[in-house]
């Protein structure tokens, strides 16, 4: 048997390298999964305590609107109803995404289709810069500019869902824009060329070809933006008003899950009901973001199938 034959049948440095590389990758991905499991387990176990240990009715927790964890109702159960916060959280998130999406898509189209060189070169760094502005700063700008503005126009205190929406709109804009730009860029060049060659106008190409095939990507972008809006705490807390009331309209003070969580967590004692109840809010936050993820996967898959057929 010659040297080459022997080498062919033996492991070499390359084989070992590959094993090592694979192992490293598996460890990394394993680490992330372990981390997620750990957080999920941790928050779930904390959040469920309200219902198992303190015997709060889950349904009541989700559908009633009184939050007074230190007082008991007639059956001796603590009064904790998170409905106003759930409603408010959803409202600001959806509204912010609704307002931000057209802007984000417009800017993304501008950056990829209309002025791919100069526009992108100018806008990209600015948008990246916006991501870096701390939420506290957004909050204070909101407090000193947006709240008085809203008060001036609609009366009332100016605190409320509308102010929250406007602050969040600016905050999620860069996230949605950047990801949309990525998904538009991912549309192969020949789609554009083919469409334009068929005599379609630029707008027809953008609308019928590019946006269509980038839809799953854009949806992901929106979801990522919503996730940021949903989890945002400090900025929203400053402009939403933090009133534990069902929001009557867009300009009455309200409270989101995160604003309640940040405001109160330091004032409660670990292991007591007021603390557990706050962790239940965190659990709701988590479950909602899970739900959003599932939704986007579902839509993404449907979109792909449509595109393929």
């Amino acid at each position: 048997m010659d040297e080459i034959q022997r080498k062919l049948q033996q492991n070499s440095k390359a084989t070992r390298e590959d094993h090592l590389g694979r192992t490293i990758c598996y460890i990394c991905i394993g680490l992330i999964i372990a981390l997620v499991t750990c957080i999920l387990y941790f928050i779930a176990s904390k959040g469920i305590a309200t219902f198992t240990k303190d015997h709060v009715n889950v349904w009541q927790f989700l559908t009633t609107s009184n939050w007074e964890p230190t007082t008991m109702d007639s059956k001796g159960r603590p009064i904790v109803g998170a409905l106003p916060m759930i409603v408010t959280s959803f409202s600001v998130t959806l509204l912010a995404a609704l307002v931000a999406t057209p802007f984000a898509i417009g800017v993304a189209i501008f950056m990829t289709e209309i002025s791919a060189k100069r526009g992108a070169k100018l806008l990209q760094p600015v948008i990246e810069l916006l991501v870096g502005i701390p939420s506290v700063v957004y909050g204070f700008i909101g407090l000193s500019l947006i709240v008085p503005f809203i008060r001036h126009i609609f009366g009332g205190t100016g605190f409320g869902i509308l102010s929250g929406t406007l602050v969040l709109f600016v905050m999620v804009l860069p996230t949605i824009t950047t990801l949309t730009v990525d998904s538009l860029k991912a549309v192969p060049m020949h789609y554009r060329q083919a469409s334009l060659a068929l005599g379609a106008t630029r707008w027809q190409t953008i609308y019928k070809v590019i946006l269509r095939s980038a839809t799953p990507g854009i949806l992901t972008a929106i979801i990522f933006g919503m996730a940021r809006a949903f989890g945002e705490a400090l900025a929203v807390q400053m402009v939403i008003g933090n009133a534990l009331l069902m929001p009557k309209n867009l300009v009455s003070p309200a409270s989101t899950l995160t604003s309640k969580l940040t405001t109160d967590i330091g004032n409660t004692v670990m292991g007591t009901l007021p603390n557990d109840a706050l962790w239940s809010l965190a659990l709701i936050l988590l479950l909602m973001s899970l739900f959003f993820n599932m939704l986007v996967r579902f839509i993404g898959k449907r979109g792909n199938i449509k595109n393929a057929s």
Partner: protein
Amino acid sequence: MHPKRTDKIATGIIYAVVATVVAILVFLIGYILYNGVPDITWHFLTSQAQSFSAGGGIRDQLFNSLYLLLLTLIISFPIAMGAGIYLAEYAKDNWITDIIRTSIEVLSSLPSVVVGLFGYLLLVNQLNMGFSILSGAIALTFFNLPLLTRNIEESLNSVPNLQKEAGISLGLSDWKTITKIIVPEGLPGILTGVILSSGRVFGEAAALIYTAGQSAPSVSYTNWNIFNANSFLNPMRPAETLAVHIWKVNTEAVTPDAHAISSGSSAVLIIVILIFNLGARFIGNHIYKKMTAAK
């Protein structure tokens, strides 16, 4: 409607949208800089913070922010790299990959408050790490990871498959092909991702209040012993970052010149991020050129 006219109208609308967004951005950044830049002095940048008298600086906070960012990247980048490579090169299209992707997305959508509280209980309390830069860096890693991983995966996927075939057809291992050929080609994309996520890390406050803490004990910048409590390099010391400082000055502290400090800090923060962005771009291009020897 006539397609040509639709085209014109649509283009007009897009220009209007872009103009609006640009106006908002310019106004925001202009507002922050206009209010803040006059407060930035050499003294402001190089002196210690004062809790209840005017004239405090942000030296320690600025350093802490940078150090924390560095540590976060040191911890999260390799993990994200491995995970990104896994997803781009090794993952098969099956339910396990699906679960992995879902977990990453879940991680990315975790509210920073929740991450902060999780970090507080696990790192600060259970693992006895206390309020420290390291706790903060690990907490920040939690949401830096998904952003980076996604970005690395995308950057690697954007490198044509032909390159991988070229590598392995020469008898190189998959690993070598990935690390020496595909990764360098994806590097500019990866760097952009790192910049973007760094911006987020830099401005993060909610997660740090509960992990890195909100006090900045005086440290010695001449003590290079990483294990010494006074050393500026000690990762086990508590550290207030610039973003947390802005939060604290505005909400709690009784500093008389709170407004000036917070607007000055905000401006510094934005300027640092700007320098960082430009610098990273420059270095990225440089590395790319060097690695690819493209002229």
